[in-house]
């Protein structure tokens, strides 16, 4: 029983009118790996620290297992937290760092030794147990921080941007290591990051938070394929989704969606027309991912646009092409072998399945 649940969880800091966290509901099942992701200052770290017991709850409940833990101090919550700065005790050896929590709980010495040796083996730290944190590399410190959490065998692992202090290469490596660790331990993990790539690659499910509000929860694929709103659509995926405000026009036998200058238009089928009509809007925001733009004219339904090439970023296998279509800027990913030069005018398209429509005011995806 080590599920974690947030119910209408709200946080308001004293002297601050805005809510840092606004009625967040989230259930994390036993053994699940959930990422809280969002831009910096969105409240994701606040949420994590509230689960850990480092921040008080303004309203709502936090449940770990089957207990409401709102009023429990961190030590009574049976959780472990891996900090962004690792927060190792600088005056203690690696062994003492990892065993501190167990010593405080008066676990017998031989059990402590066994637990620490075990964790050190998993994390490849056996040779460093007598060193102090200052004598370790960044990656090793990171692993000590993980080890400190593992030896405690907690109901849930909480991680606050644990990879942000590592260099790019080590980050990718440790990412895999954490994922492996998760499978091996089968433990519940809640992982905070601002990096959607980290979230996409590691999480069973992702919770996207913005301005204190939970925008969407779902598997990485769900978030990518069916973003609930413009924010999630823009946040997930890199380079991020293109958004273009479009006008809805009634035409004979249906409706047409067209951009201001007329350089972009979408031909809809009956289902989509009905969807837009039922939303009762005269304007929509069109969303299209760069990787879904094809360098060829439209065949059948879907989006077609005329655009000129402004900037080409060569990335090896493919190229990011910055386009200008009328007054709108777009990015498209094209095969690197496509012969393109700046100033070229292209006719591009996207299939109707790849297109998203959002309400122009609320940003909610139209379905």
């Amino acid at each position, binding site marked *: 029983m080590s599920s974690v649940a947030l119910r209408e969880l709200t946080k308001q800091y004293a002297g601050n009118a805005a809510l840092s966290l606004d009625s967040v509901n989230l259930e994390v099942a036993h053994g699940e790996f959930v990422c809280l992701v969002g831009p910096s200052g969105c409240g994701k770290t606040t949420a994590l620290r509230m689960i*850990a*017991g*480092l921040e008080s709850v303004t309203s709502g409940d936090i449940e770990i297992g089957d207990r409401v833990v709102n009023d429990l*101090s*961190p*030590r009574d919550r049976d*959780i*472990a*937290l891996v*900090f*962004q*700065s*690792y*927060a*190792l*005790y*600088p*005056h203690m050896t690696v062994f003492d760092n990892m065993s*501190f*929590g167990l010593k*405080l*709980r008066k676990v017998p010495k031989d059990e402590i030794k066994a637990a620490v040796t075990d964790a050190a083996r998993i994390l490849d730290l056996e040779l460093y147990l007598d060193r102090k944190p200052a004598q370790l590399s960044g990656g090793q410190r990171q692993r000590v921080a993980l080890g*400190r959490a593992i030896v*405690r065998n907690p109901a849930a692992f909480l991680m606050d941007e644990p990879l942000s202090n590592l260099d790019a290469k080590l980050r990718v490596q440790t990412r895999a290591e954490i994922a492996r660790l998760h499978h091996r331990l089968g433990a519940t993990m809640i992982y905070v990051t601002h990096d959607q790539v980290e979230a996409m690659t590691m999480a069973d499910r992702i919770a996207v938070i913005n301005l204190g509000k939970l925008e969407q929860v779902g598997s990485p694929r769900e978030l990518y394929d069916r973003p609930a709103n413009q924010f999630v659509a823009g946040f997930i995926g890199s380079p991020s989704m293109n958004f273009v405000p479009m006008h809805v026009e009634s035409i004979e036998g249906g409706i047409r969606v067209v951009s201001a200058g007329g350089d972009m238009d979408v031909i809809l089928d009956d289902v989509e027309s009905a969807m837009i009509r039922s939303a009762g809007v005269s304007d929509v925001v069109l969303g299209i991912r760069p990787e879904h733009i094809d360098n060829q004219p439209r065949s059948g339904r879907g989006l077609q646009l005329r655009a000129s090439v402004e900037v080409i970023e060569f990335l090896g296998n493919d190229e990011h092409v910055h386009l200008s279509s009328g007054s709108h800027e777009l990015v498209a990913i094209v095969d690197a072998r496509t012969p393109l030069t700046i100033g070229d005018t292209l006719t591009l398209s996207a299939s109707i399945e790849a297109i998203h429509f959002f309400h122009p005011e609320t940003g909610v995806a139209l379905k």
Partner: protein
Amino acid sequence: MTSLTAEGLKVTAPRARQHGWWRRNWVSLAFIAPGIIWLLAIVVYPTIATIRFSLYNESATKFVGLHNFASVFSTDTILTAFKNNVVWVLIFPFFVTFIGLMVAVLTERIRWATAFKAVIVMPIVFSTTASALVWRTIFDLDPHVGVVNAIEQTVSDWFSTPGAYPLNSAIGQTAVSLASFNATGAPGGLLVSKSAVQPGGTVMMGLTRISSATLQTLGAKTPVAPQTIAGGIAGLVWNDFSPSQTSNTTTIVSDEHGLPNLRLSLVNSTGSSVASTVTNSSGDFSFSHVAPGSYHVEVLASNFQTSFVGTFWLGSQSITPTSGLNQTAQSLLSVPLIDLAMIISYIWIWAGFAMVLIGAGLAALNREVLEAAEIDGATEWQTLRRVTIPMLAPVLTVVFVTMVINVLKVFDIILNMAPGSSQGPATTLALSIYNDGFTGGIHSGVASAIAVILFLLVVPVMFWNLRKIKGGSP
């Protein structure tokens, strides 16, 4: 630093190049020259001269080797100074660091931290002279001046209220010794009338050795012989001492005084109290409606309750037992009470310094480490003891060492806080240098020897500082 080859080049450089070096650097050298010259003349040279003086006689005319050092260690007054410095070093730096730490940790949790810190830091900007004077009144023996003794008095009065006629315990005065006429002592430290009295009768009791100051304070008036009252007992208690008729001890004389505010009790033949009263300003009293019988009048013991005697905080009485020791052993082993009073005052001055430094150290700590301890299950106390304090160790060491150096040189507070009678017992090395070297003409020998010892005591810190700065970033 220039490399070895560059140095080699410079040594063999042709004259023209040396000329160029001058031209490039003369402004820079001119900038540092005043500072260097000043330091060489007033700090470096005198330090060396003092070392030299310490090996010469008092008028610096004859080399005497280590003779001055020998006299330092064989002179009781200087040994006293050493002892006091040791007392200061053992007590003061620890408590200042400890209090600074506690206060710095606690201030992090209050909203009025800024105001609080200002209050604690403020005494650092006062001169030690002024602070010493303030504390001198705070520890004053007179409870009408010193707060500490006033508080002691209040507390002591809760447990035993002094009477209007307190006995002088210092000279072993007893209640019986006050009895003069028709009065005698009784168990429990009270006085009782010798003669029995019946309702309608009068009783007179004479006491003596009551100080005129007491009489004046109480507003005592000329005594009047008591008038009988029907069915009651009237009486008088007076100070049976006449300056004009010193031998008259039985009758009232006009320059005698009644004794006001005396608490009296009427006791029947079985010895139990039946009524009580208080004398008026001329010493008269009366009990009305007294049942027939034979009575005695008691002057209650509470009237003579000894008054409060303050603690002489600024005195030289030793806290440690030193009776039976010889002079030198006393110099080395006695801890005069004033040392404690001065250390308390000095903590008041310097705790702000410790708090500011430790507070800055705390603010620089990685908060997440403290939170990690909380998550690991440490209570606040365990976090403080096992995580916060070890992490603060470098700062705490700096505060501690700084305070050790500070009290090695402690001077102003003793000169200003200790009354003349305590100056000697409370002296320190710095004060000895001043007294030996400058009061009554300049004497360089022994004073220089003490200064050299003081200097040697701070030399380790000098190297410690240097190592820290070489190791640190700047």
